[in-house]
């Protein structure tokens, strides 16, 4: 899988529009329909926001947004930061069996990422967190 495009941004919430604009551009170019592009954008926005909020608790840092397309139907977004080891996918999902009115608010971002993407993986490589979100192009 080769990178189509990449951008490196300060890991701050106000960077989100620039990172997401790239994701929308690449997903559209890859051939996804507009509604699916928005779903991919939502998953990436939830993940990027988590990185901006939690990856660098004591310092400032950067996050790289990398759009990749393979020869098969795989379209992936990699979010790469050099913050503390942080696997957001390992966070326990909210307990959906508890009446939602009693459930603590929040924690919905990760379940949305999982539901919206066809695959989501995390690995730590050296000093980097690498979160890969994959969507399959329509046949």
């Amino acid at each position: 899988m080769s990178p189509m495009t990449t951008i490196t941004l300060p890991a701050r919430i106000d960077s989100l529009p620039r990172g997401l604009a790239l994701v929308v551009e690449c997903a559209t170019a890859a051939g996804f329909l507009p509604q699916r592009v928005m779903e991919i954008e939502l998953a990436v926005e939830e993940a990027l926001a988590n990185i901006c909020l939690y990856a660098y608790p004591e310092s400032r840092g950067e996050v790289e947004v990398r759009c990749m397309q393979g020869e098969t139907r795989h379209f992936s977004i990699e979010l790469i930061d050099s913050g503390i080891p942080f696997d957001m996918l390992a966070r326990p999902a909210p307990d959906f069996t508890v009446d939602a009115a009693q459930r603590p608010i929040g924690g919905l971002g990760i379940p949305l990422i999982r539901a919206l993407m066809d695959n989501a993986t995390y690995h730590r490589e050296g000093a980097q967190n690498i979160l890969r979100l994959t969507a399959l192009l329509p046949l």
Partner: protein
Amino acid sequence: MELQIEDIANVRLIHIEGRIDHTTVQSFQDLLLPKLTDCTGETKKALLDLSGVSYMISGGWRVLVLAVRQCQRQQGEMVLAALSPFLQKIYPMTHFDTVFKVFATIPAALEHLSPTAASLYSGAE
């Protein structure tokens, strides 16, 4: 992101328009919650028209949960209606079906909340 308010008999119909993302979610909360302070008991029920919400992050659902809880604390009622295609796709993923009452259309929600408001609304169309 914009809110438009329409009071029909004892129903406050709040039309929400635009994208609710990380740059707009705080203003969504700041605009919406004060509009619900007088939604108490039978005197004023709240109906949120979500047909114009083209995109919404998890934080937007959080604001809607805060809103419905605020109304419940006031012995009021708040329902959602006319979810946009994007929200229709996302809603089942939130598992909030026990939190919100959701109606397919504005008239269907009005029928549930207030027959008087429903008849006034259909008369205005």
